[in-house]
């Protein structure tokens, strides 16, 4: 036996597979097929949680995704998962569940003492108080509130599990595998459509899984279900159980979360825990059912108070007797089905209190026929009990309520269609006065709702509605299939809102402890919009997002402001339908897969040399090459000295490269760059500056003309994609008359920079077909290096004689190693980006993004000379003519020399003219680059300084937290200002 309250037979359980599990450390037994909630109830456990605000004892209210109370934590360490609904947790061997939000135990929760203060804590109380004394909110009140709030605890360590993602396309996606969804999927599949069918539960079937006395086409409902699934499988439909459609986005794009392993005791480690499906469906059929609503009366939250149909479900599907003596309070016929099902299983039905004046439907008649006591025109004034309900207070029209003892109090306030996804799809809702509920009105996308989710109740109607929707979605011709159904009628009912008097708290939102009194208070305080009431009271903002709260909140607000329900409006339904794991969204994007890592062809060589790398965009670049236990500082100094005195080797492969080809290539570049290119001779290079259309520097690089109609353009590492995008834009949209092609060749070329006085001697032995002596500074030639076809640029970003060897990427490392070998005799030294930065700063060369920040013109950074002013047009030219671009007090690039030569300024440090002024100080510039120059044996800095070029020679100040540093404004070129070394 698995629990004292387990029925001897029935249910969709595998009784051959008993399972051990624990709740708060107490060992219990259940069966395969149980949920945690059904297994707990089978063991007589009704007290399962504590509420958010008042820490009231709470039991299982529902049997599905709408459960507000039965939240537990599963798992330990990195797999600890809080706030899971016991009604959705499939039992497996060894499952260990913990209750939440209580201390020290669920039965004895010290925080429950807070109920003494409850009268002080109505909706929004925290807006009215905790303001005094100033500062106390932060120091005292807020920490206390935070400690009380929250539900479960977050995992203490990283989640070890994996999450997968899939994209899928289909003709018809059916959400919900109840009778309407199954009929829709069958009809669509019959019409030849590619069908996907998903359902949040462990097995498809929906209400069929708990259907008694129902036959479809002459066979029992559950047998029909099995046959329907076989037919779908044969038709090739994708059927996804344990898969929640949580989001409905633009253009029929839906997000589905599949739970793959949580129901397994020891899952295959190769399986992901969850899988995100992103589905683009030509047509969607929503068959998401309806949710039974609670009644709002005093004490409607005691453990043992349950939704009527949930109790029926526990009895029929899980073979659980949820109590021994039940009272039902209802405003809907469907509760009678629950009463009958429980009655048949030996639960004593003490009373059925129907809030309606009459109850004449088929189900009430059946109940009466079974001898059940039905009281119409009844009220429910409250419940009594402690950790379990002990009695219901039933009355009639103001008469003194009668105490009817029970250990199970079932309620049914009607049914609300699950329009969540429909509403997310931006479909318009309509209030159906007959149903007292919102139903879908006009679809906004290629979507249809079917069955209970659009207010069509009952098995026969749902099947017919589903078949019609599925057929129409698949474009089927002919009348929809008809099913011959024998089943109890669905019955009708109403949504009664606040149903009884009673002085105690009547809950609307169970989890967030929002009461009918709170709704009334909000209305009294002027909150008339349901969105305001929701925010003020927090109704509908709990982890169930108001699935059992929103409709009651609406009717109570409508009553409070004496307006019809539709005029109060309804809150917006938001993604996700039920909570979805962060990891499911993140999928495989973790660690190196978070963003692809780009490495150069020589990366392996650098790594083997012990290089330290830095991230530049998505690239890994060698930052410096420490030898032995060198510090970065020592390594960089050594690398710099090698370049200045002998030869350095640098991997420049990350620079963006674009091949610009065509009869109008030169004309195109003339317009893209500030420089003049028309007269650039083949075989020569030019340093180019590109602006944004607003006149600020976007990018720079060296552009070589290989032939009259062919240019090799380089860009910054981070700017490659941006530059190509801008070029394509102008080429395609502004100047389509220019005959030019653009090709990104960044990945095609490995670029080996060889820089230093010995550079020519190092590479000359490896070069064929190029006259090295004749190749001038800023020249380019095509030939062979190490027998590999190469483009050889004579360019320098160091101020030394320099070459950049471009070879096809596959040969990069081999050529690199050959150059290193050839240079060994000259002391060739690999250097990284840090030394590169120091060397270029010594020469006053800017780095776009470091000296410039999106607010600098070419003139600001000393590149006015590059601008071809005679050109009729180039990108950004017109903007340079604006007044503010010409002001003499713009920030300009200068050099700074600290008065103490060994003091290195901090990059980003601010410059002032008067160090004695009070804060806020007038800042006139900032340091963009600062290094200890090994070449000069002192610190150097580049800075952007207002009117800087006119301030050369002046003294400026850099106030630091602990001192003020004085510096002299100088030219930004610190080394070899004549450029003699370039021509060495």
């Amino acid at each position, binding site marked *: 036996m698995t629990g004292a309250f387990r029925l001897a037979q029935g249910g969709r359980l595998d009784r051959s597979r008993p399972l051990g599990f624990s709740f708060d450390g107490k060992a219990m037994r259940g069966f395969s097929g149980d949920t945690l909630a059904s297994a707990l109830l089978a063991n007589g456990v009704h007290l399962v949680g504590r509420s958010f605000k008042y820490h009231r004892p709470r039991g299982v209210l529902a049997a599905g995704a709408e459960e507000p109370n039965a939240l537990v934590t599963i798992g330990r360490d990195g797999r600890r998962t809080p706030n899971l609904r016991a009604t959705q947790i499939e039992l497996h061997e060894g499952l260990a569940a913990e209750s939440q939000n209580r201390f020290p135990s669920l039965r004895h929760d010290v925080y429950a003492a807070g109920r003494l203060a409850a009268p002080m804590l109505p909706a929004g109380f925290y807006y009215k108080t905790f*303001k005094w004394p*100033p500062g106390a909110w932060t120091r005292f009140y807020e920490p206390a509130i935070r400690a009380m709030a929250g539900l479960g605890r977050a995992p203490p360590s990283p989640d070890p599990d994996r999450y997968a993602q899939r994209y899928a396309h289909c003709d018809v996606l059916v959400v919900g595998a109840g009778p309407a969804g199954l009929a829709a999927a069958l009809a669509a599949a019959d019409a030849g459509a590619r069908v996907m069918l998903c359902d949040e539960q462990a097995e498809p079937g929906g209400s069929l899984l708990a259907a008694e006395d129902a036959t479809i086409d002459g066979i029992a409902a559950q047998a029909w279900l099995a046959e329907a699934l076989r037919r779908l499988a044969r038709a090739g439909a994708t059927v996804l159980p344990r898969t929640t459609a949580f989001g409905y986005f633009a253009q029929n794009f839906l997000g589905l979360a599949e739970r793959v392993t949580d129901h397994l005791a020891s899952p295959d480690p190769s399986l992901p825990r969850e899988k995100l499906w992103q589905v683009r469906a030509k047509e969607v059929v929503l068959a998401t059912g309806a949710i039974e609503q609670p009644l709002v009366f005093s004490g409607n939250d005691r453990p043992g108070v349950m939704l009527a149909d949930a109790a029926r479900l526990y009895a029929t599907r899980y073979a659980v007797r949820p109590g021994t003596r039940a009272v039902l309070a209802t405003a809907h016929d469907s509760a009678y089905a629950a009463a009958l099902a429980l009655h048949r299983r030996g639960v004593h039905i003490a009373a059925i209190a129907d809030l309606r004046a009459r109850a004449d439907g088929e189900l009430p008649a059946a109940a009466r026929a079974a001898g059940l006591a039905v009281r119409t025109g009844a009220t429910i004034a409250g419940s009594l009990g402690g950790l379990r309900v002990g009695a219901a207070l039933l009355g009639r029209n103001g008469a003194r309520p009668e105490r009817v003892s029970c250990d199970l109090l079932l309620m049914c306030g009607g049914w609300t269609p699950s329009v969540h996804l429909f509403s997310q799809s931006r479909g318009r809702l309509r209030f159906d006065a007959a149903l007292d509920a919102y139903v879908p009105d006009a679809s906004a996308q290629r979507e249809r709702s079917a069955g209970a989710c659009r207010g069509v109740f009952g098995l026969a109607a749902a099947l017919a509605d589903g078949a019609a929707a599925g057929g129409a979605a698949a474009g089927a011709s002919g009348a929809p299939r008809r099913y011959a159904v024998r089943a109890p009628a669905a019955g009708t009912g109403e949504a009664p809102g606040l149903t009884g008097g009673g002085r105690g708290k009547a809950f609307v939102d169970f989890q967030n402890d929002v009461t009918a009194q709170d709704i009334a208070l909000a209305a009294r305080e002027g909150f008339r919009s349901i969105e*305001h009431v929701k925010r003020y009271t927090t109704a509908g903002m709990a982890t169930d997002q108001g699935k059992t709260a929103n409709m009651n909140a609406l009717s109570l607000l409508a009553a409070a402001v004496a307006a019809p329900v539709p005029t109060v409006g309804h809150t917006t339904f938001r993604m996700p339908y039920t909570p979805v794991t962060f990891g499911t969204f993140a999928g495989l994007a973790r660690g190196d897969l978070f*963003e692809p890592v780009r490495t150069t062809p020589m990366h392996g060589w650098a790594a083997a040399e012990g290089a330290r790398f830095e991230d530049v965009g998505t690239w890994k670049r060698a930052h410096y090459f420490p030898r032995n236990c060198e510090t970065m500082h020592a390594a960089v100094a050594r690398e710099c000295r090698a370049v200045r005195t002998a030869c350095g080797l640098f991997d420049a492969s990350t620079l963006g490269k674009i091949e610009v080809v065509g009869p109008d290539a030169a004309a195109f570049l003339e317009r893209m760059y500030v420089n003049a290119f028309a007269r650039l001779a083949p075989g020569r290079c030019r340093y180019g500056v590109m602006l944004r259309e607003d006149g600020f520097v976007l990018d720079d690089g060296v552009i070589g003309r290989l032939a009259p109609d062919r240019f090799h353009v380089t860009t910054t590492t981070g700017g490659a994609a941006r530059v190509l995008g801008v070029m394509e834009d102008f080429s395609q949209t502004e100047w389509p008359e220019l005959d030019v092609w653009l090709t990104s060749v960044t990945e095609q070329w490995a670029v080996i920079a060889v820089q230093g006085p010995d550079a020519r001697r190092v590479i000359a032995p490896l070069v064929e077909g190029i006259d090295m002596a004749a190749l001038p500074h800023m020249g380019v030639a095509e030939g062979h290096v190490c027998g590999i076809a190469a483009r050889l640029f004579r360019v320098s970003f160091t101020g030394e004689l320099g070459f950049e060897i471009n070879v096809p990427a596959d040969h990069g490392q081999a050529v690199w190693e050959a150059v290193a070998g050839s240079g060994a005799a000259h002391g060739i030294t690999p250097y990284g980006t840090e030394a590169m930065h120091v060397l270029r700063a010594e020469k006053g060369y800017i780095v776009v993004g470091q000296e410039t920040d999106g607010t600098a013109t070419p003139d600001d950074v000393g590149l006015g000379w590059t601008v071809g002013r005679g050109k009729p047009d180039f990108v950004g030219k017109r903007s340079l003519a604006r007044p503010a671009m010409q002001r003499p007090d713009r920030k300009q690039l200068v050099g700074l020399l600290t008065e103490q030569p060994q003091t290195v300024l901090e990059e*980003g440090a601010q410059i002032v003219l008067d160090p004695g002024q009070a804060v806020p100080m007038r800042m006139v510039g900032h340091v963009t680059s600062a290094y200890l120059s090994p070449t000069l044996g002192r610190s150097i800095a580049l800075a952007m300084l207002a009117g800087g070029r006119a301030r050369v020679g002046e003294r400026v100040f850099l106030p630091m937290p602990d001192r003020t540093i004085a510096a002299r404004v100088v030219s930004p070129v610190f080394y070899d200002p004549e450029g003699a070394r370039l021509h060495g």
Partner: protein
Amino acid sequence: MQRFNALSLLRRSVRGHQGWRPHWRDPAPKPAYDAVIIGGGGHGLGTAFHLARDHGMRDIAVLERGWIGGGNTGRNTTVIRSNYLFDESAALYDHALKLWSGLSQTLNYNVMFSPRGVMMLAHTLHDVQVGRRHVHANRLNGVDNEWLTPEQAKAFCPPLSIGPGLRYPVLGAALQRRGGTARHDAVAWGYARAADAMGVDIIQNSEVTAIRRDAQGAVSGVETTRGAIRTKKIGVVAAGHTSVVMAMAGLRLPLESYPLQALVSEPVKPVFPCVVMSNSIHAYISQSDKGELVIGAGTDAYVSYSQRGGLHIAAHTLEAICELFPRFRRLRMLRNWAGIVDVTPDRSPIIAKTPVAGLYVNCGWGTGGFKATPGSAHVFAWTMAKDAPHPINAPFTMERFREGKLIDEAAAAAVAH
């Protein structure tokens, strides 16, 4: 105004809280007002409050298309900080930050301003340069902002992963201790209640459909779904919809409206002590008093008024969150939503007079307007009352674009090399 305090709460609790009056009246619009504010968000309601309190203008209507606080005020992630780079921005946002610290007392409404510290992460050497430049500039502007090592950052925010397995390591962080969060709804409600008490009419469900001009071209009134209203001063504070409203006056603005998404997790016990932002991998996170992790995503790429963003945008943000805080992978998204932010080319707001006499505009806050609410409201009310800008908002004109004198916080922060 009914005073709110612990004593009044206690007194009324005895009578079942029957004695509370509406936070604000629900008046029908009058035919004319001295000034009309279009937009009942925090900035608009705050503007009305300051017009009434500081400038003696009590005959004011705030026109709200839906329900007050329902736009970006109620949709943002409530991050408050003032450590902006440029002097103009630092002055504006720090003005706001100073007002935040006393706002609950000013309004007699607990807006739950919580200066728990805002930490901005640096993942690359370029981020470090940018971050330190901010720290230095802020210090000389009198704005607190300090540089932390990765270890200090981890100590300040224990869930942060600074380990070597990260795709983008944490190289440091800028911390503004005075930064933090506040309760967004309370800001709208508190301003509304205080403004209402001084006579301001807060008119909800009233959409402006036209702006009327007189023969000289100056504004003379508005048409609304609840009738025409005469007025000589109109303040447009309709974040997201600014272009739509300004088009009614024949103006085209340097604005584009983008969807901006945010999301919360299910509530958990306190696990996250501060606010953490990572600009370069797009993640913004804090924990609300209720226990939800509040997470901000980036904007979608395209102009939209749909108040809905793409799943891939939210997913990308959660990738970043899971990368930085791997212990949160198992937490679950509870609710996701989007607002509409209007964005200027330099990502700085426009708080200014317009070429139309009597028409004022406060817009272009992009993704970061909430933090400025009290300061923005204060200087905008000044601008409307005096028909001249307050010194703090004087640089935030529309003309700056014509002159090329931009306040380009975005460019200064985001360009990589």
